[in-house]
């Protein structure tokens, strides 16, 4: 009895905030009105409660035996709630017995010309918070043990970088990719801007490093099937796709591919080259293993062939293999699923001109690449001749909100300059043209690179969008305009390279649903805050890296991957994760099991036991937003220290 009486008593501090509050709200009047209010033990004021002396005053009061809770009437709780709660904890009081009454943003600042009314309002605000405070519980933080393992989805340069950073800090990492090899898009590139480093040369050592890292488990040719659990304790089901080759036996010697009679266009070479039905993605693949493409394989189609079986000295071919589901447990997930290019067939006004010699930027990378289908020689796909007039078109599909994608794909300006320059290096007597709208070259040494392309390589930059393409014999006529001279321009090109827009890679929609993370209006994964939380998602424990979040170049991708890795490490550096205890809970007596709260929860924190017809809140996942509380007609869901009876008494105290 004595104890509860103590808990129901409250001390009040009124902060002047210099003149921010005190020049509008009459502090003395506030003190006078609160002095006799039921449950109020004392009312004190100070110029700056958040200052060192203010904090001392506050701690002193918390230590006193007379009050069960403290109300600080000051600025928004966003600013100093944590400050005061920490101070209370240091003084031995339960931090959740400290409440802030916001009399600055919600009172003095908005009513500075109505001082009397502002004073009345300040008193009301404080009274209502006193009422709430009197009914507060002494809560303690929720904590949960974490699994010190990480899953990185996508093994391009971004995923590889994140995985290396995490694994090198001593944490087991799974690196998953749906392709047979790691390496991603960067493995397809020829040379990189602005240094013209050979992409393969800088990437391959990284791939080997990843492949040999003892703490990294590669899960290539795999997809995320299902994700359950929550931060610190995710359970992920991974579909290991059937390669029809026993990878434990396969050494990647390539004898099978040599014997395979079936050739199909190679995805890796953007259909400019061909691969076999049993193939390894590219010569430097990690892991260096082969897979059978079931769609093309003659054995799967006709039941005959089996030449690969004969060819393999290790007996690794296994037509009976099936997809396997493997379950792993991880504490955090990094999503680095990268990008695809927008399909050029969607650009209708260019379609009449399409022939083999109109290709997209990635295809041109393959033509430039020394490991590509032409060993790095620029040859027309149609007839193998050297193109002498080559037109590069930027912003194809990008910056076209009316037909295609509204955003800037960000890297096309740079890689087009690189393409034009490399073309000029390969074909010194050729003439490259670039149709552009703006040149966006805001990276280190980028602008200099573009200027070099224009000045030294004599690449002709034409400012204007191309209206259409059409074929004329062996040529492709490019119909454009030079908006600077106002002239209409026609170029009879031997080859046209389209800098197609970047978009998130296929399947990102389903993956985002499985991970319960958001996508933006363009389908890219949403970061928690565009400025201050760029690698986090709104789902705790899931982080972003690379082009899955937005178009970016290799430099930025690697930086972001490092940032994501550091966020993961920060998260997993604690043995236990703590979590604010002001979560929702379900009163089972009242719960009728209608499930409306489940649908409201954006964090997947509520489960419905359909047999018992009871909802249950998972404390770790609950973010304390209160949506479920509002949705429940039975008032069966309550939020700790935000209970409905607390609200009633708050309202009651002011109306």
């Amino acid at each position, binding site marked *: 009895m004595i104890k509860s009486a103590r808990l129901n008593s409250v001390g009040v501090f009124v902060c002047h905030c210099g003149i921010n509050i005190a020049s509008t709200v009459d502090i003395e009047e506030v003190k006078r009105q609160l002095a006799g209010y039921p449950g109020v033990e004392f009312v004190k004021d100070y110029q700056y409660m958040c200052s060192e002396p203010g904090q001392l005053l506050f701690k002193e009061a918390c230590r006193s035996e007379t009050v069960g809770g403290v109300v600080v009437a000051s600025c928004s709780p966003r600013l100093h709630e944590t400050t005061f709660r920490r101070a209370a904890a240091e003084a031995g009081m339960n931090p959740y017995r400290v409440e802030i009454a916001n009399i600055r943003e919600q009172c003095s600042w908005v009513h500075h010309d109505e001082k009397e009314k502002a004073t009345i309002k300040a008193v009301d605000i404080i009274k209502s918070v006193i009422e709430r405070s009197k009914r507060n519980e002494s809560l303690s933080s929720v904590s949960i043990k974490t699994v010190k393992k990480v899953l990185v989805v996508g093994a391009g340069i971004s995923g590889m970088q994140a995985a290396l950073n995490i694994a090198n800090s001593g944490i087991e990492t799974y690196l998953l990719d749906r392709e047979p090899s790691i390496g991603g898009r960067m493995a397809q590139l020829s040379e990189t801007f602005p240094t013209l480093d050979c992409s393969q040369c800088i990437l391959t050592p990284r791939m080997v490093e990843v492949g040999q890292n003892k703490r990294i488990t590669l899960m290539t040719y795999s997809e995320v099937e299902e994700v359950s659990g929550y931060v610190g304790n995710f359970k992920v089901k991974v579909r290991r796709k059937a390669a029809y080759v026993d990878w434990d036996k396969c050494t990647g010697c390539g004898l099978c591919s040599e014997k395979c009679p079936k050739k199909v266009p190679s995805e890796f070479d953007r259909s400019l080259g061909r691969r076999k039905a049993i193939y390894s993605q590219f010569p430097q693949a990690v892991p260096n293993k082969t897979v059978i493409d079931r769609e093309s394989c003659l054995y799967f189609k006709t039941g005959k062939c089996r030449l690969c079986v004969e060819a393999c000295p290790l007996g690794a071919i296994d037509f009976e293999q099936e997809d396997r589901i493997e379950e792993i447990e991880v504490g955090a997930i990094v999503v680095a699923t990268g990008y695809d290019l927008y399909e050029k067939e969607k650009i*209708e006004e260019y*379609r009449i*001109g399409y022939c083999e010699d109109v290709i997209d930027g990635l295809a041109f990378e393959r033509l430039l690449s020394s490991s590509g289908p032409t060993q790095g020689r620029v040859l027309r796909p149609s007839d193998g001749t050297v193109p002498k007039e080559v037109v590069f078109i930027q912003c194809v599909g990008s910056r076209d909100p009316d037909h295609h994608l509204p955003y800037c794909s960000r890297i096309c300006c740079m890689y087009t300059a690189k393409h034009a320059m490399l073309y000029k290096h390969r074909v010194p007597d050729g003439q490259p043209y670039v149709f552009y709208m703006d040149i966006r070259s805001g990276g280190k040494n980028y602008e200099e690179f573009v200027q070099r392309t224009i000045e030294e390589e004599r690449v002709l930059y034409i400012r204007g969008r191309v209206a259409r393409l*059409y*074929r*004329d014999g062996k040529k492709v006529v490019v119909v454009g305009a030079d908006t600077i001279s106002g002239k209409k321009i026609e170029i009879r090109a031997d080859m046209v390279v389209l800098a197609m827009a970047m978009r998130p890679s296929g399947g990102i929609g389903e993956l985002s649903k499985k991970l319960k993370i958001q996508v933006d209006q363009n389908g890219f994964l949403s970061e928690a805050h565009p400025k201050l939380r760029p690698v986090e998602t709104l789902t705790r424990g899931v982080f972003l890296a690379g082009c899955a979040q937005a178009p970016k170049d290799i430099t930025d991708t690697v930086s972001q991957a490092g940032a994501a890795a550091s966020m993961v490490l920060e998260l997993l550096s604690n043995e236990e994760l703590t979590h604010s205890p002001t979560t929702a809970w379900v009163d089972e007596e009242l719960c009728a099991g209608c499930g409306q709260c489940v649908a409201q929860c954006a964090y997947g924190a509520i489960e419905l036991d359909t047999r018992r017809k009871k909802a249950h809140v998972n404390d770790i996942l609950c973010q304390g937003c209160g949506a479920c509380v509002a949705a429940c007609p039975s008032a069966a869901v309550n939020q700790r220290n935000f209970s409905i009876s607390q609200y009633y008494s708050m309202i009651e105290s002011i109306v």
Partner: protein
Amino acid sequence: MEVVSYMPGCTLKTSGRNFEKSAITLFDILGVTMEELDRWVCCGTTYSLSSDNIMNQLAPVRTLLRAKETGRRELLVLCSMCYNTLRRAQSLVLHDKEKRDKINEFMYREKTTFDGDEIRVVHLLNYLKDSVGFERVAKRVVKKPSDLKIALYYGCMLLRPHEVSVDESSEDPTIMEELFSLCGVTPVYFPFKTECCGSYQTVNQRDMVLSRAERIVGSAAKNGADMIVVSCPLCCHNLDSSQQRVADTVRGFRKIPVMYISQLLALLVGADDAGDYRLHSVDPRPVLKEKGLIG
């Protein structure tokens, strides 16, 4: 016998009468009767593009009212310009309530109002595709022209703006190619099929229209077309009657006859002739004879 309401437009009664006549012959053979609206008025030829001009919408809406009075839901149009004007006027009335009310208020003497959704304006091509069926047209084909290559010219008004396009694509339409391929005629690659012929500028920008004709007909010729097929009396005029003047100034320019969709189709399904050949500047008869379409 199916019956369809039909609005010819002015030019189909004069210089474009081959279009109407051959369409009637074609439909007759396909078992469809084209029933001309009683009191249609000129569509106004070009859709007014200024937001406050309601006057220019009255003519097409009156014709749509006449169509509504027939009790049928469709109105067949052959001429590309009429199609564009009527179709856009219908769409305007349907989507802009304020203008709809104003138009109906203005025409208070009419027995009924037009609300935009009573009539579907259908171009010949869409009628053949959706109501008759290209397969059914193809089944009626009796003449197999030996290796007739045609350039299918869409022009502007069948395709733009995109909302009224007769094909899913305004930039790379294929509906005519689909139709004629099924009928045993080979469409040639024709990159100028959607490029404007110069339209009404033929009246006072003759040079521009000649230059357009040179490029468009030149492209058809270069790609081996024996004939250009059109759906608009104005395109027909600009491409056909300009050719002699282009030929006079451009060396090596090859003249190609221009015919309406229905003229060629009518011949294919067995009509004896394709109308009054005097209306053509470039006489199509030598090609038609060579390919065995006329005796």
